[in-house]
């Protein structure tokens, strides 16, 4: 492909800015032009403000001219999932109920990006309130997979992954509650990282399931993912679940070429029992590559894997029903006009009926049910105990391995509409990603090849707070494979 700016990685753009051979305004204009050229087909964006992005770029160029550059991301556009709060900007969660909401403050990630000089670039489509794996549950529109426009991009951060794959953004932020960064990254042929729970502050992320949600980077390559993770990590007094632990330089750690003996676990539940070998052949090939590099592989078992989906859908829906109670037609944007005039309670009923889409209603109702009197112990408490067992499976495994490799998704991207009438089938497609959220561990999806022209991701799961190690393991594969330079024809 050509040398156009929109094909370049964030690291390359940062180098070009440092050397003075390109300005931030030129870079941002290149992405505006790219969106104009392809987004009518990809539909990754809910909205973007070209004038505002160019003004941010202009400010960056002026800082650079004065020798006051802020950070490595200064002048680099970063795409944002539409559930992150940017002061004075829309935040829709792709939901009708927030269609005219304007954030009154900056989330911590956004403050950090601004302090780094990044250009905040657009609002990217998602499944409504991050509930889904395809963007088909978006209240605005369905995003297309840039590799095959008839297929889903994955979700819920489908807009964030599709924008990076289609070169409409060089890097972007997503959020991951049960695979919502990794699965779309896998489907779109880009890198996606869910950090350890607590690594990144959730302040200013519209909450879906608070004990599972994490913000993380989506990027063309490992170096860019590390660059963005460097910018957003760290303890935050505004999020009491963020963890006060040292943040390494992930970029440096990922690039470290030093010798190291790796032992990698291959969980039989992910390979023998549920995978179609043809659909994950690139993953098997990647494992062969790692063997050729001296990595040792060990067959392991995560025996409670088959209970992860059921555990997840109790915990996630319970937390969601509680978190989404705030959208009541009273405090935020849309209020039903046509309530019976009876009382405030009726405003809740009617506003939520109008403002929420089908999947959000389904999950809020399921979550309400599992928390309701008489069912709490049977469902919610039971699921919390099962969660302990699922986490202990990983703790046991990590006693004898450094990291675990699996496919990210059982299949490449499916055709749009494949799961329209069967929500359970859609839930089951998350089988390989949700355990990392239940256990709280970091997980990376890395492009490792194609099946029938569709990208396939290798998932690398690491010990808590060892993002540096899984990035480094991923980099070893990436260094000798050119998938990071592939772009879909659009």
């Amino acid at each position, binding site marked *: 492909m050509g040398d156009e700016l929109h094909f370049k990685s964030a690291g390359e753009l940062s180098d070009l800015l440092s050397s003075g051979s390109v300005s931030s305004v030129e870079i941002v204009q290149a992405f505006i032009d790219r969106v104009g050229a392809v987004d009518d087909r990809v539909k990754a964006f809910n909205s973007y403000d070209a004038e505002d992005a160019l003004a941010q770029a202009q400010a960056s160029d002026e800082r650079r001219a004065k020798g006051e550059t802020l950070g490595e991301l200064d002048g680099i556009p970063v795409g944002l999932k539409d559930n992150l709060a940017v002061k004075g900007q829309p935040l829709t969660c792709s939901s009708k109920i927030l269609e005219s*909401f*304007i954030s*009154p*403050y900056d989330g911590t990630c956004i403050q950090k990006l601004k302090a780094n000089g990044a250009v905040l670039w657009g609002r990217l489509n998602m499944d409504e309130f991050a509930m889904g794996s395809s963007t088909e549950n978006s209240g605005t529109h369905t995003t297309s997979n840039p590799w095959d426009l008839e297929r889903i991009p994955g979700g819920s951060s489908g807009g964030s992954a599709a924008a990076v794959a289609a070169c409409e953004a060089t890097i972007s932020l997503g959020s991951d509650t049960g695979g919502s960064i990794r699965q779309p990254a896998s489907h779109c042929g880009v890198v996606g990282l869910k950090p*350890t*729970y*607590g690594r990144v502050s959730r302040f200013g992320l519209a909450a879906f399931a608070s*004990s599972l949600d994490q913000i993380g980077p989506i990027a063309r390559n490992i170096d860019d993912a590390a660059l963005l993770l460097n910018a957003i990590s760290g303890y935050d*007094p505004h999020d*009491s*679940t963020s963890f006060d632990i040292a943040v390494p330089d992930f970029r440096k750690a990922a690039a470290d070429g030093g010798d190291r003996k790796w032992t990698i676990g291959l969980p039989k539940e992910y390979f023998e029992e549920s995978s179609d070998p043809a659909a994950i052949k690139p993953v098997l090939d990647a494992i062969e590559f790692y063997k050729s590099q001296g990595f040792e592989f060990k067959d392991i078992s995560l025996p*409670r894997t*088959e*209970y992860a*989906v*059921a555990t997840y*859908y*109790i915990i996630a829906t319970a937390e969601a029903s509680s978190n989404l*109670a705030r959208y*009541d*037609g*009273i*405090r*935020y944007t*849309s*209020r039903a006009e046509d309530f019976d*005039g*009876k*009382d*405030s*309670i009726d*405003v*809740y*009923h009617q506003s*939520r*009926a109008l403002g*929420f889409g*089908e999947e959000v209603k*389904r999950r809020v*109702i*399921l979550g*309400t*049910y599992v928390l*309701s009197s008489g069912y709490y112990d*049977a*469902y919610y*408490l039971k699921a*919390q*105990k*099962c*969660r*302990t*067992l699922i*986490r202990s499976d990983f703790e046991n495994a990590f006693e004898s391995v450094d990291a675990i490799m699996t496919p990210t998704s059982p299949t490449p991207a499916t055709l749009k509409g494949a799961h329209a009438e069967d*929500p*359970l089938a859609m839930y089951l497609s998350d089988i390989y990603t949700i355990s990392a959220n*239940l256990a*709280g*561990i970091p997980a990376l999806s890395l492009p490792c090849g194609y099946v029938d022209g569709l990208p396939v991701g290798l998932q690398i799961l690491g010990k*808590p707070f060892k993002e540096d190690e899984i990035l480094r393991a991923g980099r070893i594969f990436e260094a000798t494979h050119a998938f990071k330079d592939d772009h879909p024809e659009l």
Partner: protein
Amino acid sequence: MPEEQSIDIEKVADLARIALTNDEKSKLSSQLDSILEYINKLNELDTDDVEPMAHPNSVFNVWREDKTETELPIEEALKNAPQQRQNMIVVPKVVE
């Protein structure tokens, strides 16, 4: 977990404060019944002596100094409310 159950969709929708049409009720209750049937799989696991887990990391109360900080001005905080007057949110009557 109850062996066989059918979700009382009227009651749960009321608790969740979501008005549903009759079509939605019948569609959702059959979908939720099949999801619950799947979820009952957890009964296979013996969890009698297992501690429940609410968070991946141990989380404790975090306290800060009890001093005034600059937070959102009232006008900013209320900007998204659909109806407001004199720095308050306007709602229909709440009590009889």
